[in-house]
């Protein structure tokens, strides 16, 4: 599809690293902390370019979150970096009290989210992090879909005053969004206009939704595709406008069904516009070792699952 030309294949974490490096040059208040995963988080450029503003905290994530909260008190804008599991579940109470309740300007940046980190298995494959973070008052939750968008999101959150959770991943995936597009927090991105169904996706599953739309178009189904990069605050207006037109919805995400994007969309629709909805998400299960693609298929969140979900939801209209 010419609308979505793949520029290259890149990992979203590298988009974070590139964005952070750029912030190092443009915003002297930006500081970064990492818990012994500088290479994995692609924070090496920022570290090398700004040694005084980089804090290697060791394998001590709780201290990292607390230090980040403290750094804001001196006017700094701290970006913490570690895997999504250690960024959220491991330090939930530290985030809750020292960051969210205290409304500190900390940016919690989390890589290796979801199943696609692959072979490391379920200990590292957090599928609950969006839910954990979106439940916290004051917290903004962002889940960009490719390298360009992750880079743009990283730069944008430095300008936002308040706690942010930024979620990205490990594998190289199609990089297709406009590299010059400004990232607007809280604004849904309608990637393709259609009339038969609204597919609402986030993170790596946005590209899968685009792949699914090719199959659907060949089958005579005309889908609208929305990239929800900001899960909280949710762009309710954009979702409702689209659903009002298509009358059915499929959500797609690399996350647990409980607490994820689909859950947010369902809450919105059941209150304001009850509509048939299917969720492509992990159904109350931990992951396991395997390649990212194998896992997406095994846990029913791959392209084919989106196509099937669309067919199901259209039959429910």
């Amino acid at each position: 599809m010419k609308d979505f030309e793949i520029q290259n294949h890149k990992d979203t974490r590298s988009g974070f690293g590139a964005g952070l490096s750029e912030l190092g040059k443009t915003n002297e208040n930006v500081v970064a902390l990492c818990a012994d995963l500088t290479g994995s988080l692609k924070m090496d450029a920022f570290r090398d370019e700004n040694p005084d503003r980089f804090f290697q905290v060791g394998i001590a994530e709780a201290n990292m979150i607390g230090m980040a909260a403290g750094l804001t008190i001196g006017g700094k804008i701290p970006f913490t970096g570690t895997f999504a599991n250690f960024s959220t579940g491991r330090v939930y109470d530290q985030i809750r009290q020292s960051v969210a309740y205290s409304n500190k300007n900390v940016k919690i940046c989390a890589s290796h989210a979801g199943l696609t980190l692959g072979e490391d298995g379920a200990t590292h494959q957090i599928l609950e992090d969006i839910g954990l973070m979106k439940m916290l008052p004051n917290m903004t939750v962002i889940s960009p879909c490719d390298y360009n968008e992750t880079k743009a999101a990283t730069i944008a959150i430095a300008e936002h005053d308040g706690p942010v959770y930024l979620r990205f991943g490990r594998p190289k995936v199609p990089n297709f969004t406009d590299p010059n597009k400004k990232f607007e927090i809280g604004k849904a991105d309608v990637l393709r206009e259609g009339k038969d169904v609204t597919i609402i996706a986030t993170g790596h599953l946005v590209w899968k939704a685009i792949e699914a739309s090719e199959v659907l178009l060949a089958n005579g189904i005309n889908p609208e595709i929305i990239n929800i990069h900001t899960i909280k605050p949710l762009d309710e207006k954009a979702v409702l406008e689209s659903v009002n037109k298509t009358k059915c919805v499929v959500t797609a995400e690399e996350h647990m069904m409980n607490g994820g994007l689909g859950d947010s969309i369902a809450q919105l629709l059941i209150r304001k516009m009850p509509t048939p909805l299917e969720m492509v998400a992990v159904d109350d299960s931990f992951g396991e070792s395997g390649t990212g693609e194998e896992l997406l298929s095994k846990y029913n969140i791959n392209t084919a699952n989106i196509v099937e979900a669309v067919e199901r939801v259209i039959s429910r209209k």
Partner: protein
Amino acid sequence: MEVKELEKITSQVRRDIVRMVTAVQSGHPGGSLGCTDFLTALYFDVMNVDPAKFTMDGQGEDLFFLSNGHISPVLYSVLAHRGYFEVSELGTFRKLGTRLQGHPSVSKSLPGVRIASGSLGQGLSVAVGAAAAKKLNNDDSIVYTLHGDGELQEGQIWEAAMYAAGNKVDNLIATIDYNHKQIDGDIDEVLPMGDLSKKWQAFGWEVLEMDGHNMTEILATMAKAKEMTGNGKPVVIVMTTIMGKGVDFMMGTHKWHGSPPSNEQEAIALSQLEETLGDY
């Protein structure tokens, strides 16, 4: 400030604590009474602060973080008498809509408080971060903290302790309220912590010890601690205190950790504490 003047304040602060927790029949009087002398010395003599110009950033002035947030009554009373807000506001403690939340909070913008605390073990990390920010800002002020001894059972404290020593965070003075008591009993019964001073030394900190109820000794030790800053090591003071200090029936027992006195007990307590600055 003269020791006699400071002791006048401590008597009033202790009265405030007893009255605050009795009024709402909740709160933590024991540790509050035990840390009254220290916090009074800190805010009225040791720290360089300007209550009238309180800002979240606190640039150019010393900072204090109460990590054991449950002793909020003593913090609130000291802050009020120091001029951060009206003393009369102490009467709102723990009541609906108050800025004086059960545990310190920034959600209602109470001057003097820069971070929430209550869930234990987090304040040292926050202080290390704030101290790092001061260095980046070329601000040579000092960051102070207070922790409960039982709080040291939280692992995050030792993460922060390792970081601070390993990274020469030497604009930081932590204090431990060593009253040997926690909610369930004596710390040696609940979870023995061994030799606290040696533990901190082993983690690479400069360690001082002091009697937390001898004002002369507090001032001298804090002055010494200040002199020790800027030399590549963080400083910790292991401060021996008596939980419930100042009220005879509350002293030395964990039973008053989180229990308020009855009205009759309040009257007895207040009879032991001179009203020096006027009750709120």
